[in-house]
């Protein structure tokens, strides 16, 4: 029961995912629309909240067991609570019951987003430019014919796509564009066939109940 019911559900919903693409008949189309609009939408909303639950539990355990850096888990949980309160009661436009402005200093959810999440999110990945620079100096070596071919193609693209390339010679931008349009497409498409066949195999195995790792451990 614990394994067969989920496997039956995966089979039914899998088939329901496939057929509306192939059968235009209104019976199939309306059930598909109904299933998406009612069932899938509500379950999806709960799935979001579940991810949140497991995150909070991990950090709560961290605090309870005083693992290293546990103090920062407090920072995470407090930020989460404060932002949720401002968001839920302040409303998406800061027009909710909770006042979200002191004089000219507005702290509605949108200003918090623009002035806290944007700096944090974008700087987190701006670090990578520095890391790439040091990797370029210390690690990217033409250690094999493949690696040297890769670096030569990279140099042409890096120069060709910029106005500098156009100034060096009018052919360079077109050559860089040609690298993207022909050899790159051949390489990516060749790899893509294999990857997609792999995904299709996995998809069919999941629907037909051959692949069961998603059931997780336990009986």
């Amino acid at each position: 029961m614990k394994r067969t019911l989920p496997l039956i559900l995966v089979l039914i919903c899998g088939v329901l995912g496939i057929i509306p693409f192939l059968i235009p008949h209104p019976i199939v189309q309306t059930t598909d629309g109904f299933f998406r609009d009612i069932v899938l939408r509500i379950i999806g909303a709960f799935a979001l909240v579940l991810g949140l639950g497991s995150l909070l539990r991990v950090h709560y355990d961290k605090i309870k067991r005083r693992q290293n850096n546990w103090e920062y888990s407090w920072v995470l949980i407090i930020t989460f609570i404060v932002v949720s309160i401002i968001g839920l009661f302040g409303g998406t436009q800061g027009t909710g019951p909770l006042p979200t402005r002191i004089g000219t200093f507005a702290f509605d959810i949108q200003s918090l987003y623009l002035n806290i999440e944007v700096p944090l999110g974008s700087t987190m990945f701006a670090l990578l430019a520095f890391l790439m620079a040091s990797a370029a100096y210390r690690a990217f070596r033409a250690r094999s014919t493949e690696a040297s071919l890769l670096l030569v193609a990279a140099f042409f693209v890096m120069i060709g796509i910029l106005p500098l390339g156009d100034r060096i010679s009018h052919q360079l931008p077109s050559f860089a564009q040609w690298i993207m349009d022909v050899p790159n497409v051949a390489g990516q498409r060749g790899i893509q066939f294999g990857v997609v066949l792999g995904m299709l195999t996995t998809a069919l195995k999941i629907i037909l109940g051959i692949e069961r790792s998603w059931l997780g451990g336990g009986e």
Partner: protein
Amino acid sequence: MATILLLGIFALAPPTAVRAFDTPDDGGSQITVDWQLSKDDAILDGYELYRSENETDFEKIGFMIGRGRNNIVDEQTQDGKKYYYKVAAVKDTVKSYSDLSAPAKSSPQWINRRKINIIVTLIFLGGIILYFIYQARKGKEFFIRKIAGLQAIDEAVGRATEMGRPILYCPGIGYIEDIATIASLNIIGEVAKKCARYNTKFINPHFDPIVYTVAREIVKESYSAVGRPDAFDPDSVYYVTDSQFAYAAAVDGIMVREKPATNFLIGWFRAESLILAETGASTGAIQIAGTDQVSQLPFFVTACDFTLIGEEIYAASAYISKNPMLLGGIKGEDSAKFIIIALLIVASLFGLLSKFPILNLFD
């Protein structure tokens, strides 16, 4: 103005050969009407569509249809009801009506003929894959060529043993459902067996708690499979953190402190692959990488000594684990690739030599 007056006297040429038929491959309640353009099409304002259920009282439906267009779809029909249509050529107030079309009834279809090629591919592909998995389950032996990367793994472990230095195996930041992580777990087993046999120190830091628990079982099993259950050190496989950059910083620390002779970076990676590959290269260790994340492969190819590209990690894990499911899957995909190659060659011959519109088969 004169020309219009002149034309007014001789009346506009009406559209001809009006045809109405049930729109194919649809869910019903649609009828397509097409016609031959009126001879005066160039100076027309456009066309109007008229519908009736009894050949006499017609009503105009839809908006003015621009000149030069000779078809329109009436989307508000009731299935099974008979409709007659006629089309009027319109110029200012002058209208000239065509003859009646034959009666037409709209009906839904069960099969969308334009999707036949998907159905054929689905049945064909599904059939091949299931055939090979069924064969594999029945224990049929499959041949898979030895992946070049596996040679590199043997040499790398040998090197670490000679130098008496540890081996670091980093499985990436994927979760248990990522195919790359599952493939990496199979390869961990193989590397752990070699470490057990040659008594080389094995270090295996993890990003995801579930993957960590599965890996610990695999490594323990590998040590006992080689007859050295006592040599298994439970601290060699451990969980670090679930934050992307903190994990990369921690693994860098191991590379610098423990100075492993060989680093394995196999699994699901994102932007942190740069940090790992760079530190490993700067410590002079032999590095073997492998991922199916195409965006990270360029960095592994330039920073590591050997890189397993995309599917090669799936083939390596199937080769190592001899698991019938994996072998069946690889064989199924291989035959599908063979068919795609054959199809490309045959279709190109058609495309080049004959007038047959081969590309329309693939719309």
